[in-house]
Structure formats: structure tokens, C-alpha cells
């Protein structure tokens, strides 16, 4: 089997974006509407609220071969009152468990992206690309 994604210009490693359906996901669509390019190793999943995912989900993703995860939430604009704070608390526990396993916590990042935050979206994605370049394409590597 040949190796896909080995095209020049596509960074190695896969970035998973968990984008909230009311803010960050339409924000990513807005980046598309502006035809602003970003690396093709970024894969976006639509979520209602990232508070759905337990700590183990993130660790499993990294184990499966995802190199970095950006949780793009609604921040203070979250339609589910209290969800963002609960998410922030969970992130602390995710980091604790990552450290226990010797994983660099920069591979998981929580941020807030609005429906028209094109520049912020591109900035977050590019920063995670740099993290993967520095730390390696996958956490397992």
C-alpha cells in the first residue's frame, strides 16, 4: 500500500479540530468562503459542545495517530451555560494525564473561535503545525 498525504507542501501528522457547531464550525466555513488556504492535514469535526468528550477520548486520539488536537469552542459565547468552564476544568485533567504518560501538553489546545474569526482560526492551525514540526508528527513517534 502506498502512503497517502506524502505530497509536497502537506505537513506530516494529522491535526484534529473539534469545532462547535454554533461558533467555530461556521468559523471554519467562513475561512473557506474567504478561500484562505491552510494545510490539508487539518481535519475538522463538528461538535455540539466539546464538553461531551471525556479525558480518555483525547488520549485515545493521540494514541491512534492524531498529532495535535485543537478544541475550538465558543468561549464565553457558549450557548450551553457552564459548558465552557466545565471544559476548561476538564482540560486541566487532560493535561495531568498527558504528563503522566510523558506527552507534551502542547499537542492539545483549547481556544475560542467565533463565526467570523478567520484570522484567529488560521493562527491556531498554523501554531499547531509548528508544534507538530517541533515535537513530531504523532505523539507515539
Amino acid at each position, binding site marked *: 500500500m502506498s502512503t497517502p498525504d506524502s505530497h509536497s507542501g502537506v505537513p506530516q501528522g494529522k491535526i484534529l479540530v473539534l469545532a462547535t457547531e454554533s461558533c467555530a464550525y461556521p468559523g471554519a*466555513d467562513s475561512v473557506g468562503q474567504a478561500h484562505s*488556504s491552510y494545510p490539508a492535514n487539518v481535519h475538522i469535526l463538528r461538535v455540539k459542545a466539546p464538553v461531551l468528550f471525556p479525558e480518555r477520548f483525547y488520549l485515545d486520539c493521540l494514541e491512534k495517530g492524531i498529532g495535535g488536537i485543537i478544541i475550538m469552542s465558543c468561549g464565553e459565547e457558549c450557548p450551553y451555560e457552564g459548558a465552557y468552564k466545565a471544559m476548561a476544568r476538564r482540560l486541566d485533567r487532560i493535561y495531568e494525564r498527558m504528563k503522566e504518560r510523558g506527552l507534551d501538553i502542547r499537542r492539545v489546545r483549547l481556544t475560542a473561535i467565533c463565526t467570523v474569526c478567520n484570522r484567529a482560526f488560521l493562527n491556531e492551525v498554523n501554531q499547531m503545525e509548528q508544534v507538530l514540526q517541533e515535537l513530531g508528527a504523532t505523539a507515539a513517534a
Partner: protein
Amino acid sequence: MAELEKTTPLPAGNQAEPQANGSRTDGSQTDEPRVGVYICYCGGNISDHVDVEAVRERMENVPGVAVARTNMFMCSDPGQELIMEDLRSGTINRVVVASCAPSLHETTFRAAIARAGGNPYQYEHANIREQVSWVHHGDPATDKATRMVAAATGKARLLRPLEPIRVDALRRAVVVGGGVAGLRAALDLAERGIEVALVEKSAFLGGGVARLGRLAPTGEDAAGLVADLAGRVLAHPAIVVHAGATVTSFGGYVGNFKMEISPAPAGDPATGPAAASAQAQETGAPGRLADLAPGDYAPGRGVAAPLLASGPLALETGVVVLATGFADYQPRSGEYGFAEHPEVVTLPRLLRELAARDGQTGNVLLLDGRPIRRVGIIHCVGSRQIPGVHQEDENGHLNEHCSRVCCSAAINAANTIRESWPDTHVYEFYRDIRTYGRGQEEQYARASANKVVFLRFSAEEPPVVRRGTEADGFPLVLGVKDELTFGEDLDVPVDLVALATGMEPGPIPELVDMLKLPVGADRFLLEVHPKLRPVELPVAGVFLAGTCQAPMDAGETCNAASAAAVKAVSLLGRGFVELDPFVAEVNAEACTGCGACVEACLNEGALALEEVETDGATATRARVTPALCLGCGACAAVCPEQAIDVNGWTLAQYEAMVEMIVSDAPFASCGTCASRAGCGAGAETAPGA
């Protein structure tokens, strides 16, 4: 297009069993997943950058895929028919469409599935336009599209049939705004048996149209239109009007919104009674607001309406129609001499003066006792502003949009003047003439016949207004570099300059915040889609009517308002609304009643522990109240037994998507030709239906 509708029927052995992901099996023997994958070219929007046929062929390597097809426009009737035929024939029982953003067509395809007898929730959308073809190019785009479609397929295999949550809907509507749009919508709603509360911030009904005279292009009397609509609204038994009121709180959901309204602040210079009184004096109406009874017409203001005496008043409603209207652009001090020379006025002001002289004729138009021998009308004031050329307002805004109505309004005014006062000459200073609608071009031609003089300027070199000298014989001189005479510098001495000011969205920041309304780059309210859902907002049950959405003339405003009313009526017609069933569900067999989910729940009352009888013993189990559940999933993350999940968005489904994103299975080489893209050998490739 036929050659672009291709199909890959896949061998039965490809249809693997669903994975049991520990928590719950999402399929059953009788519901073995057979996923149909439908990939859209989007007329080149996708296929110019993604090799759509390669993606289709790669889907043969993906477990659970029964058929993969492509179409030039999957949202078209023939495209939807492909899906429906496969469902009806039993070829598939789950659908993945790979196309544009789900916000545009998710509902389209869910509806198609339902029409074919399938379950609309056994559907997953892969966004390969906004998030692939518009941001990536070439092979990387095709590879990413492959992974995203495979991921959607991974989720689709685990989707169970769901039923929407049915909630009783109040057959009531609140219309916010008492201009022509609000009046038209209120009447249409009431005449279909919906109880309407009409909330208007000012003391008058009629809105922006009440400030005008004869309407372009038909010459219809604005005052008559407003008086007719407002009279019917005030007399209608199903409509209650609350004027002088603002919305102060908003909550609930479609079918069951809760709104509070309170008396508008008395000191508000735009809406308060003091302003109404001053305006009434200016326009010759009774001097005090108290002198006006509901139904009385005040020129330039509209029809007096019953005021909300005290508040807050709670309103419960099934739908909300927003008809908050527009504001006239206010020229900056010094813009074309405005506020510096008293002879410079806005076109709306000139229209009011003409309305006050309706039916009068003479040799020359008199304003304030002053003969107007020549009037210059400058177009595009506060419209079509260009960054770097025009000055931003104090909030940094530019009106880059065309206000659409001003060309016709200006030309209509010119014709009225020329035909009523033949010794008053009119000079139109324009950038482009946009008399776009029915009857408008005829007005333009009539202006030529009336010897209206047109002079064309560029945005970079607008006309300059200066004080005239005695030699000029006129109080003002308009200097312009006229493009129609190939850049000749012309001076036009005039008695009056009228600025054809554009339309801006009404100032409604509180409503935008309270209702979480989407606002476009032009600051008007933004519909879901200009053609597919032109009067709807993303918030279900909230509709747009009239110029809060975009500049429109009175006729277009009534069209939009009636459209909003019809949409609202059709939503309320059944007496109930259906909400997406994406709420938490407890697997009672796995639940141990530990209460972690209840503690994590973010909406009080949505989750509770209850005693249940199982096998003759009493046990504690968690129970969800679907109408209160927000579907956020905070409960799912903390359950130690993985016994609670959000329907349609389960953890197992996300895990399956991640597995497909990291999997290279779709890229497996073809055994026949070693092509990585998949040549189709071994799977029959046939033209589509």
C-alpha cells in the same frame, strides 16, 4: 451531465458488520448498515480541486459502503432522486452526502430521505467544499476529501433511527417593528388565524415609508398606503399593538418563546414622546402627542398607535417576525456642504416638502418662500462607499452596499418637480443609474423627456459644493468633473442641493444581542441562505421581514413581509413543532445510578435520578427529560459506565470518525493496476441513474 453521474455498486463482502464499541450496538441484524455515499461536484466548486471520481472509487475500500455515486449538483432534483431511489430499492439504509457546508443542505437531504421513507437522522454530512476544495488544492485536497467522506461513513454506520421531539407550539406571533413590513406581516398572520402582538418602538405605525411622499416608480401616495395598512391592523381583532415599547428580554425556543417588552425610554431622542411632539409641530400635525388618538394620521410620522403604559409585559409566542426597518444615512457635517449651507438638504426632506405640496402646480417651486430655480441632486450619498476613498463613520463603518431605492426616488422627485413647476430645473449628479425594477426604467426615460440634466462623476472625484458669488446669481455652486463630457470641469449654480442618502440598518444592537442574530458585513441582518431560506434565521422560529435584511423599496418590503408571514404560518400550522432528537439517552441496563451525570448536567431538571423496578428489586437509574435536555453531552463525558450518550452525536460515532481519519484503508492500492486512487477494476463502474 449524465457522464458525470457515476456509480460504484460495491461487492456484498464489503459491507462489514458494525463495530461494537463497548457501550452500545448501534445496528441490529435487520438494520445492517448499508451506507450510500453521494459526492457532489458543485458545478466545479468542488471538482475543480478535488478529484471527485477518485474519492468515489476509494469509497469501495471503506467498510459498510453499499454504493457510491457522484452528481454535478447533488442538491438538484436529479441529485436527490439518486439518493431516494437507492433508499426505495433497499440498496442503502444510511446516507452520506459530501458537498457544501451542512448549514446549507443538511435539511435538504434529511427531507429527501424522509420523502423516500428513510429515517432522516440516519444521515451524515461531509463538508468538502468550504473545508476542503475552497481551502486546499490538488492531490492533498482529494486525499483530505477522501478521509472526511470516510469519516462521515464511519459515523453513518453507527447511526440509529431517531424520532424528532414533538413540542406543542403556541399559535401566536410577535412582530417587532410597525413599519410597512411589520404591518403587512401582522395582517397576513392574523388573517390566517394567528394571534399577533405588534411591538413598535416609536409612538407611530408606518416606519420609514411614513417619512416619504409619493413612492417610486408608481407614484403611489405613501401616506395613503401607511394609513390603509395601519387602519386595518388597528381594527383587526386578532392583532394587539404595543407602541412606544422595546423588547427587554427574550428566551425559550421555537413554538414557545418568552419575550418581555417595556415602555421605550422617554428621553430617547429618536423615539421618545418629546421627539414625536417636535416632529408633529414641524409637520403641522397636532402639537402634542397627547392630542393624537390612536388611528390619527400625523404627516411625516405615521399613524398614532396605542402606547404601552407600563411594563414589563410578558408575551408568549410561537414565532417572532423581525421587521425593524432601516435608518436614513445622516450625512457628516460638511459632507457636500451639509449642515454648513442651509440650502443643502437630504432627499427624504425634499420628498416630504414635495408631499406637502402634493397636487399643487406653478411656474417655480417655492421652499420656505424662496424660489428654487435650479435644484442639484447628488446620488450615492452614504452608499457604495469605497475604503480609502470615503470617510468611515465614528464607529469605523463604511456603507459599501448600494441602497437600491435612491436612484428611482431621485428621478421620481425630478419628474414631479419638472412636471409641476416647469421653471424649476433639475440636475442629477450620479455615479451609475440603477433603475432596476418594473416601471423604473420608464421613469428614467421620462426624466430625459422632462429635460432633467444628468452629470456623471467618479467616486474619487465627487462634486464640490461651494457658496456662490453675486456673479453666479445663485446661493450655491456645484462643481463637477463630468465624465459624460470626457472630464470637463463644469460649474452648476443652484438654489438647492438634495443629497440622495442611502439606507442603513436600523440601530438594534440590543435585539441582536438578545436574540443572537447574525449580522452581515453590511450590518443588515443575515438570512440563512439568499435563495433557499431567504426570510429565515438560524434560530428556528425567527423570521426576517423587509429592510432590516437589506435595502428594499416598499413593494419588495411587502413581498418579503408576506413571505415571512407565510413561513411563520406554515411552521405554526400543525400546532406543534418538531425539534431535532439530539438529546441525551440513558442505557438503563448499563446505568448503575451513581448520579455523576446528574451532577454534571448543565440544565437543571434535564436529568434526574429515579427509583425503578428491575427484576423485582428497586434500583436507582438516571432519567432524561428530552424537552429540557440541551444535548451538550456534559453527562456523557463523566459516566463511568458509558451508559449515557447524546443521540446522533455519540462518543462511539466520534471514535469511529477519528479511526477513519487516521486510517489509510481507503487508499489501498488497486490489485489490478496498482493505482492508489483506485481504477475501479473489480468494481463495476456504471453511469448513474
